[in-house]
């Protein structure tokens, strides 16, 4: 039996950009982009589910994000997650990777009882690939990044294959461990129809609060109770629930500042024909080094 916690993220669908996505000030207009389940995180969830199927245990999916992020937690339930947590608070907004990994690591400590933490290698919006490794550091557990395959699991350790430049390494590591996974290693399973029908109305505390705002006859405590009874409550963790220092959360806890955003249009201005001779190749390499494209 191995329990896994999977970190997932809702991201803007950068592959299907339509309309005016970039604002005049150079920031991204997220409202114009459809939000999707970060694909590598879905792969991470699939790996966790495969471990559960093979060895037994429990799969918990967590996400930090705005209330809307409960959408992908429902997707996690549809795929087979046993439990999901929405980690959400206005005070978490504007977090960089440091503040994000702090909140996530604290949430993981609170949930506890895990052997594996899974995450995608990176999210397609920031492309930093930092949150996984930073979370492992804060949890003080080992990490395997760029995981391609889990070869073996036993009570003491996991043996996994990870990608490196020009090849792969097979590494062995004690449990608990955090793994970040690559996108094409397994095909995430489709939604189970039964689970979609069962969990389509699952709601977080924020979703329910919104319902009470729209209807004065609804009371939040009653609703929470009702959804809990029906197994449809998406558990929510706020800053207070996690008893966190506000200075380490959200924008306050984020030393990273965006200095400047520039819209770069890549366009060729001229063409150079290079003869396939040793001399011409040498000149080309020199030129590329002078331009700082190489080296």
């Amino acid at each position: 039996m191995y329990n896994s916690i999977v970190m997932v993220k809702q991201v803007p669908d950068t592959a299907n950009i339509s309309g005016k996505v970039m604002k005049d000030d150079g920031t991204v207009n997220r409202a114009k982009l459809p939000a999707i389940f970060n694909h590598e995180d879905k792969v991470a969830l699939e790996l966790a589910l495969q471990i559960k199927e093979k060895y037994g245990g429990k799969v918990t999916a967590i996400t930090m994000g705005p209330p809307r992020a409960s959408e992908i937690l429902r997707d996690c339930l549809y795929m087979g997650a046993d439990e999901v947590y929405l980690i959400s608070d206005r005070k978490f907004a504007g977090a960089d990777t440091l503040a994000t990994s702090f909140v996530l690591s604290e949430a993981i400590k609170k949930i506890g009882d895990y052997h594996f933490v899974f995450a995608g290698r990176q999210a397609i919006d920031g492309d930093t690939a930092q949150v996984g490794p930073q979370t492992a550091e804060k949890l003080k557990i080992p990490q395997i990044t760029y995981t391609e395959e889990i070869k073996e699991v036993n009570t003491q350790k996991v043996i996994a294959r990870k990608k490196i430049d020009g090849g792969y390494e097979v590494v062995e590591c004690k449990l608990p461990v955090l793994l970040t996974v690559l996108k094409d290693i397994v095909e995430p399973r489709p939604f189970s129809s039964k689970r979609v029908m069962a969990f389509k109305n699952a709601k977080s505390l924020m979703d329910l609060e919104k319902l009470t705002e729209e209807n004065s006859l609804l009371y939040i405590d009653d609703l929470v109770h009702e959804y809990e009874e029906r197994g449809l409550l998406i558990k929510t963790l706020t800053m207070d629930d996690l008893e966190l220092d506000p200075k380490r959360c959200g924008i306050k806890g984020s030393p990273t500042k965006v200095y400047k955003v520039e819209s770069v249009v890549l366009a060729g201005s001229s063409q150079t024909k290079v003869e396939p001779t040793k001399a011409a190749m040498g000149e080309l390499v020199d030129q590329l080094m002078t331009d700082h494209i190489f080296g």
Partner: protein
Amino acid sequence: MPNYFTDNNDMQFNFNNLDLNEVVEIAEDNFEQAKEFNYAPTSYEDAIENYKKVLEIVGDIAGNFIAERAAAVDEEGAEYKDGEVFYAKGTEENLKQLAAADLRGMIFPRKYGGLNIPFSIYIMAIELISRADASLMNIFGLQDIGDTIMKFGNEEQRQEFLPGFCTGEYTGAMALTEPDAGSDLQAVKLHAYQDDKGQWYLKGVKRFITNGNGDVLLVLARSEPGTKDGRGLSMFACYGDKTVKVRRIENKLGIHGSPTCELQFNDTPAQLVGSRRFGLIKYVFDLMFRARMGVSAQALGISQAAYEEALKYAKDREQFGKSIYNIPVVANMLIDMRVMLEANRVLLYNVARIVDLKEKLEEKIAKLKEEGKPFGEENLRLKKLVKEANLLTPIAKYVLTEGANKITYDALQIHGGTGYMREFKVERLVRDARITNIYEGTSQLQVVAAIGGVMNDVLGELFDEKEKKEYTGGVATLVNHLIEIREIFRDCLKYVNEKKDPAFQDVASKELVELYSYIFIGYLLLDQAEKEPKKVFIANRYVLTSLANARKNAESIKDGLFNDILHTEKILA
């Protein structure tokens, strides 16, 4: 990321206008099931939302995965090696994915692991799957095998066979056809016999068995020695174990992913399903409703795929300095295709609803009987629905499968020479469509099945009602055209009746059935046009085309075109 359900606005329109209230109420025991199963709906609206979500999953898998694998499946095909049948790699992947999504036992009750989805929704799922890969339908769409066990088997048999269908562990086949018993199933010879202990065994050969390599086979066999007709046949269920030898698989024009097997039963242990002697006259007859609807949905899926290909190609292809989409002759062909597609869709869904309601009422009546409650009113409605289903199921099969052949033919034509090449998808669609108007009863047989209902004017009352209705939304004039078609039909019917010549009636049947179908489909489209302005175009072209065709049908009947049937031998000498 194409989702074949959400990207199809006509399917969306039809889905949003479905009226399955009564079907759902009966299927869900007034929503009592929700107490037992967390995935059972709590209300009609909830049920519809469930169906929508399930179709979204089917549409996603079909559009993003099955369609991607379809060309390779066609190329590779199912393979026969050392007495065993192997699916193409893509087919295996498709089946696995559908099982993971709980889609392999959609129609079965929840207590056996199914989704308890109405037949009407299942038909839409078949359409979606077939749009991606028609050959997969012949495995996915054989959930019907289980349905016969569900309806006519005993509880033990249901518990034995159905859960395996739901998990995807089992695929099924219905083994009806034999070398000398194709369209004429009364001639089935495969021998069923009992030992001293009453155990049944099967011995003999079946041919052209779709997915005959399946795990569970439903076999029509002669259980009453000495009989020669359909009344000596019973239905059996057996496993496709070592006693069932696949002798060969056929090398076919299309649907390559679907293995078509010749089977030899060597004293195969089997279970009797239902009562002896009812195999053909009741169970096959009942199964045929659903099997024919399944093939009709397959035809519609192929039609949709062909239309999409043609439209895309016409927009991309430039000739004479413009895309051929802008050439009126091509545009006109595309409009014809689109109109036929939408007309066929509304027909299919409406007939599916009738079959659905018929089956659900049968269940309800059985329950009322059991509880000793009166069921007279339900029985009266059932009788009417049975008549309608008997008429409309073959009409749907005829119209949709002939339509698929026409649409794929035109889709290839729009591609020009390119379409004839294997590199383009459309040639596969042409090949796949070609079987739909042959198997599960040829078009000619569908006409035979429908003509009784047509001559008895089963839909007469319905048409009377529609004629009296005041249509709004600019389609009032079209009603007059439909009334005219009905007059033409009556006139032709009178002519055929008065002629009292069975051979003439046989050949004129096709014209009469077509005439009758124009009226029914015409009114379905007028009803839609009242709700959606764009449908006025569809209804308009459909009705006007039908009026022209009706005049041609009438000419064929009344101008003596068929009189030369008497001289067949001289003409063909």
